[in-house]
């Protein structure tokens, strides 16, 4: 979201974009952009610290993921067992146990981040994370039993995946 808001601002001012800003712009130009979610903390950050002109552009994408009752528990486990920072653990867990306003879809398909360290940590620990997750979910009631971990990907990978889905 940082790269996208920055890219919009710089485009308006006819300033060159960094490669990351360009990718962010490409990603939010896909037909899937209206199915993107951000966290409640990021909504507050944007409202309070980023110019309105930039926020107006991202308003269509400002769907918020809201915690469900197992989100905090999973965030705690991710943090304690796999060494993620608390914000990262919170976001990963929100991507698994978060829901939109309508409350009809649990979790998301893709967790998109420029943070390569986070992606590496997730992939290195994936077998452990999956096993811990399966154990936790098996004790829950439906529909939480169907919860699934997101794919944790870079924006480049997300673009490729979405273009593939688009083509199907």
């Amino acid at each position, binding site marked *: 979201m940082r790269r996208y808001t920055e890219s919009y601002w710089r485009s308006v001012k006819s300033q060159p974009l960094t490669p990351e800003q360009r990718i962010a712009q490409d990603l939010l130009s896909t037909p899937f952009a209206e199915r993107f979610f951000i966290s409640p903390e990021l909504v507050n950050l944007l409202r309070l610290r980023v110019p309105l002109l930039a926020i107006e552009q991202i308003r269509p994408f400002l769907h918020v993921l809201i915690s469900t009752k197992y989100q905090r528990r999973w965030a705690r486990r991710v943090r304690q067992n796999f060494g993620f920072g608390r914000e990262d653990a919170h976001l990963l867990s929100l991507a698994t146990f978060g829901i939109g306003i309508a409350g009809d*879809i649990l*979790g998301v398909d893709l967790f998109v981040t420029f943070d390569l360290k986070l992606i590496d940590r997730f992939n290195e620990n994936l077998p452990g994370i999956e096993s811990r997750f399966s154990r936790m979910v098996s004790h829950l009631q439906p529909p939480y039993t169907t919860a699934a971990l997101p794919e944790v990907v870079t924006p480049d*990978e997300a673009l490729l995946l979405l273009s593939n889905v688009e083509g199907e």
Partner: protein
Amino acid sequence: MGEQLTVEIEKSLKAALLHYCEVSNESPSVVIDRALKEFIVKMQNQKGETWFGLPADDYFSRSEEEREELWNRAYSEEFNKLQLREKEVRPDAVTARQRNREALHRKLLEIRQKSASHS
């Protein structure tokens, strides 16, 4: 008819609000609506075209790392401030990943293999 919002306020604040409404002969809704609008305008004026309180030129003259740090610090502040309310999921809710989970994972592995062989 406007939207409804239920909020909790301190007892003393409520007493002050009701006293004001009595004196001004206005309903609490009208007074709160006006106060909120004034607050939003004030916030917008304060923020203007600034990024994290910095003029845009100043913000964009900073390095990628410095800007990242500004966002990270602000995110942590919001994270500490916000007390997330939990929402109950609908019993008929479906998991986002239910439909195309396997296909998406396979495709991601392909992308990563291709990327690894190129580098």
